[in-house]
């Protein structure tokens, strides 16, 4: 589960996004790695592009030190571009994404979209 602290769906460029995530109903020992990222993706007619603004991978000792009974909090200042955009051929969407890699090869992914900037349409 991912929760954006403050529950605001829109952030201004340069503002700091704070979010927390937790995992439930999973054997904590089976978690091999956790990846957390703040990224933008393009959608639409063109091939999808991905831009990663923030990336954190936890594995090995750093993963073992985590207490999963409490939510993991992350704060990250957002860039000034690209802002969220909804055009005719392409759309730029921002999201917080967390991936859990389990020992049996299973991959769990959760993401929470948000808007960067006030822009939601072409021009």
């Amino acid at each position, binding site marked *: 589960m991912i929760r954006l602290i403050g529950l605001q769906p829109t952030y201004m460029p340069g503002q700091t996004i704070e979010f927390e995530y937790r995992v439930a109903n999973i054997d904590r020992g089976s978690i091999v790695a956790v990846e957390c990222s703040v990224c933008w993706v393009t959608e639409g007619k063109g091939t999808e592009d991905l831009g990663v603004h923030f990336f954190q991978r936890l594995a090995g000792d750093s993963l073992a030190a985590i207490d999963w009974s409490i939510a993991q909090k992350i704060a990250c200042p957002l860039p000034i571009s690209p802002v969220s955009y909804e*055009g005719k051929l392409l759309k730029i969407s921002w999201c917080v994404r967390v991936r859990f890699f389990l020992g049996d090869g299973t991959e769990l992914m959760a993401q929470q979209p948000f808007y960067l900037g006030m822009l939601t349409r072409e021009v």
Partner: protein
Amino acid sequence: MSGWWFIGSLGEALFFAIVFLIGVFLSAILISWQLMSQSTQPLKVGYGFWLFLGVCLSFAVLGIVGFWYRVLKVVTSDEHREVIGKRGIIPEPLSGSHPMKKPTPVPSIPDVRRFTDSPGARLAYRLPSQIPENGALVALGIFAMAWSAMIAVFVVMAADAYLRSSVPWQLVFLLIPGIYVAIRSARLFFRSFIRTLGIGSTTVEIEDLPLIPGREYRLEVVQYGRLVIKKIAVRLECQEESTYHFGTDLRTERQTVFSQEIASHGRDRIDWGYPLRLECSFCVPEDAMHSFQSKHNAIHWKIVVDGEANRWPSYSRSFPVVVYPSSRSSQAIVAS
């Protein structure tokens, strides 16, 4: 991740691994036979040796790049691969809250320096032009020259044979369509060249770059040449561009999402030494999207000059500009 996806990925990785091994194996055999054992010498050290070695090494490079690309696609997430691509190394586990610094002050926006490296005569910068006809003209010129040179060689061969009293009919029959293509391509090239010379060049100078939405900028358009202009119009345009795979083709689609006329001029005569000068000012809309560039998608802003002239076909010339994000975002850029 279905079974077919797994088998497909495994198959691709195995294929590239085998290609790599073949490349390395053949390179090793070639080098060891050739350089270490003089008695065998399968190829003399010359063009043949280097060609064969080049092919072997290209197999090895193709194999290793393809193999690791497939493997990384399977074992890493999309975000992880993107980070590896940016940093060039596999990132270590990080504990801080800001493990990855911003790579550039203005991410995903084209570098403004390539638009500001040419100073203007009256205003700050002269914008680089983007005239697709020029590329076509150069390509056509190269084709016409190469084709004509090839045909000329065959004509000399045919003439030589004729002088020795043996007419090479097969060559003559091949030369007839060849000469026709040479004449047509040369004619097309010179017509395009005369059109480019006659209409003359267009220059655009701008007060400042990058453009910030909501601010006003002065612009000067100068049209050179020797012609009678029926109408010339200057527009500010925003265009979305998307590149995608369609079967085995790579296609690019463009759509204009904003177009605003910022100046126009009616009938006028232009002569050598007396160009037409148009001065105007314009403003990018306050809520406009900034310029954007990623691998397959882009948002371009540009100044477009459209002209109609007597006895010449209509023309359109583009001058790309860079638009930064507005208001508070721009203050952040200046501060950085």
